């Protein structure tokens, strides 16, 4: 299972929950919008990433879960 992160920049209004809950992979720019420091989520962080996605008030943090070796 490969877990990757995406941000929907239109939906994102910069609440910053993602950076709070997943600082390992998300930083904020000077205006408070997320910068993903890595797109692929390491296995130990997968649950944290899912939690961050669920916590986003505008549902702008997207998680793609791909079965290994399979493309969308």
């Amino acid at each position: 299972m490969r877990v990757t992160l995406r941000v929907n920049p239109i939906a994102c209004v910069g609440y910053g929950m993602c950076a709070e809950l997943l600082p390992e992979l998300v930083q904020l720019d000077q205006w408070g919008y997320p910068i993903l420091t890595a797109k692929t989520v390491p296995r130990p962080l997968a649950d944290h990433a899912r939690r961050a996605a669920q916590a986003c008030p505008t549902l702008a943090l997207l998680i793609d879960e791909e079965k290994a070796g399979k493309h969308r």
Partner: protein
Amino acid sequence: MPAGGRSRVRPARLIDVVEASGLTGRGGAGFPSGRKMRSVAAGPGGKVVVANGAEGEPASLKDRLLLTRLPHLVLDGITLAAQAVGAREAYLCVHGTEYGLLDRLEAAVGQRLAAGLDPVPIEVVGLPARYVSSEQSSIVHYLNGGPGVPTFSPPRPHDRGVDGKPTLVHNVETLAHLALIARYGDGWFRSAGLPSAPGSMLVTVSGAVAWPGVYEIEMGTPVGQVVTLAGGPVEPLQALLVGGYFGGWLQVQTAWPVPMTHPGLKAVGGAMGAGIVVALPASCCPLAETARVVRYLAEETAGQCGPCMFGLPALADALGHLAYSGGRDGAIEQITVQIPVIEGRGACRHPDGATQLVRSMLRAFGEDARRHERRGACAGVVRPPVLPLPGDEERDWDFR
């Protein structure tokens, strides 16, 4: 581009012929047209064809020229593309502020309707005259009843577009070439241009040249020859802007031998864009020109994505400082730090287009920038600007 004559290719075979011709999109992205048509045709249910004639690039005039002089060639292309992909509706989009053009196109569509020429009805649509409104997801959004601003993708229009149907969005010049390919065949199309970049293209040449205007060139024609075609420089040149405001500044000697192809221009840090060449005279300040264009691009943001909405004005501020007030507060440093923060973080390519232009400015005029930072504005800033921007009366201020 010849006019007149009718298609000799059966609709079912047209996609094969377009694929064999090697035609690529003439709106800027340069995607293979046949492949785009095939993916739309393969989609489920009814399809839609959209002709994009909303020429957002202020330095481009080719789509307007084509729609004014040869509207029926474009309309032929729309009809043929619609038949080939199995569409039962088609739209021709131009800027809603261009009343004269809208009237003329509606009259042309009416003539064809009266003559029973178009099996697929074509609707002429006026889009908001905003830079980002001619991006393909914006057009689809607008045709679906929304504002003319980009949407988050996927889904892309060829998967799910107008009314959720697979939608083929082609630039009007691409459709004109398609109509000619249907008449004269892929071999004829390939007889111009390079094997890797076949056919001809329309370019808009402006700035310090003798005869600014729209020219048809073979793909792969060297940039210098394009400038010469427009009568050559009328003043000593300091640089060329190739590709428009999402393109890049190139030193004259670098650009001169470069072929007008996507890979050719990309290799030297430029871009083909919509086929725009602007010759910048030596007496101009390239930093002031860039600052002014980036300010315009910042005003043209849809205001949807934070990095674009806040990043482009900040970038324009820093460029203005550098150009006009000698880069107080380390403007070059600020610009260099801001670019990667903005890039790749919008729903569309609008912010990336602006940063690409600024990157090319730093590459081509790095020495100039450092001189500005040390000694303040150069004499060139007082010259009237060369890069065109739309006047207030040509611009819309919302997206409806």
